[in-house]
C-alpha cells in the first residue's frame, strides 16, 4: 500500500465537505464555492483510484477530469452571473437561507 491512497480519501472528504457546505451554508457565493469543492473532490477520487502505483495515472480519468474542470468553470460562471443579477434585483436575496 502506497501513500497515494491518501489522495482518493482526501477527495472523498472534500466531496463530503462541499456537499455539506452546499446544503447548509446560506450565502450563495459559498454554495458555488462548495459546489466547486465537490467537483475537485470527485476528480481526486477518480484520478486517485485510477493510479496504479507506477509513475503515471490512467489517461482516461485524466481526460475526463480535464473536461470536468472546464465544464465546472463554465457552470460556475453562469451561476455567478445569475447571482450577480439576483443581487441587483434583490440585494438581500443572496444570503437568504431558504
Amino acid at each position: 500500500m502506497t501513500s497515494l491512497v491518501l489522495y482518493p480519501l482526501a477527495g472523498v472528504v472534500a466531496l463530503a465537505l462541499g456537499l455539506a457546505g452546499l446544503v447548509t451554508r446560506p450565502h450563495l457565493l459559498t454554495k458555488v464555492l462548495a459546489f466547486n469543492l465537490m467537483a475537485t473532490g470527485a476528480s481526486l477520487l477518480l484520478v486517485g483510484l485510477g493510479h496504479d502505483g507506477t509513475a503515471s495515472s490512467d489517461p482516461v480519468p485524466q481526460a475526463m477530469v480535464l473536461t470536468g474542470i472546464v465544464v465546472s468553470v463554465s457552470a460556475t460562471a453562469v451561476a455567478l452571473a445569475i447571482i450577480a443579477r439576483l443581487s441587483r434585483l434583490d440585494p438581500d436575496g443572496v444570503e437568504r437561507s431558504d
Partner: protein
Amino acid sequence: MSLAAWVFDGTLTLTLVVLGWGAVAARDPFTGIVRYITFGLMAALAWARLGAPDLALAEAAIGAGLTGALLLSTLGRMGLRQASRRAGEALGAAPRAPTPLPGMAQAWSGLVLGLSLAIAAVIGGVARTLHGRNGPGLGPLVDSLRETSGIDSPVAVVLLDLRGYDTLLETAVLFTAVLAVWCLGVIRFRRPPWPVDPVLASLARVVTALLVLVAAYLLQLGLHGPGGGFQAGAVLAAAGVLWTLADRRALRLGESRLARIGLTLGLGAFLVAAVIPMLAGRSFLTYAAGSAPAWAWVLETFIAVSVGLTLTALFMGGLSEIAEDEAEERAP
C-alpha cells in the same frame, strides 16, 4: 523514501482537507474564496504528485486562478452596502439572529450521502490493500490505440481522438455558457470603470506578450506531452483578464465581431472536423488513418483561441456597457 512519501502525501492531503473545510466554514465569503483559491493551488500540487501534469496545469490556471477571479469579481460586484454589513456581522457588532438550523433534514441527507461515500472509499481502500495495487486500468489499451492514432500524448489521444465526442460537447458547453451569461443582461460601468493605471497598462502589454508565448509553447507541446489547447487557452485567458483589469477598452470585447467569431471557433472547427470524415464515407468524428495528429493540431489551435476568449468573456460576466456621460450613467 517511503516514510518521506507518507509525510509529504499526509501533509498535502491534510492541507487540502483543512483548506476545504475552511473554505466552506468561513464566516464571510471573502475569506472562504481566498481559502478556496489556496485549496485549488494545493490540488494542483496533488495532481502533479499523482502523475497528472495536464490536470495540474488546468487546475492551477482554471480551477484556482480563473474560478477564484470569477468569485472575487462577483463578490465585488455585489456592492459595498452588503460587504460592510457582513463585516459588521463578522465583528459581532450586529449579530443576525442565528439561522435556526435551516434544514436539519437537508443536513441529514448530506450526512448520509457523505457517509455512504466514505464507506465506498473505505471499501476501495481495503480492496486496494488486499490486492496490493490496482489493475492497470485503461492505460495499456490507450497505449496500444495511441500507436494506430499517431498522437503521442495519452491524454491528448483520449481527448481528441478516442473520446472526441466528450471534447466536442465540452466546447459546446463553453459556448453555451457565454451565451447564457450574455443573456443575463448588460453590466453598466461608470466612466472609467476603474482608474486606468498607465503603469499597469504598460505592464499588461509586456506580460501579455509573454503569456502568448507560453500559450504557444503549451499548444505545440500538447500532442507529445502535458499541455494542449485547453491549458494554452487558460493562459490566454489570464492575459485577457489582465487586459480587462488594466484597460477598459478591453470591455468592448463582446461588441467586436472578430471576438465573436473567435468565440465560435472551437465548436465550429470541431464540428467541421467531425463532419468532413463523413464525406469520405466514414462515420462522425472518425478520422482517416494517420490523419489524427493533423486534425488534433488544428483543433487544439482553434480550441486555444476560443477557450481564451470564452474564459475572458465569462470573467467579464456579461456584455459590458460603459456609460458615456453622467446623465446616461444615472439611468436605471
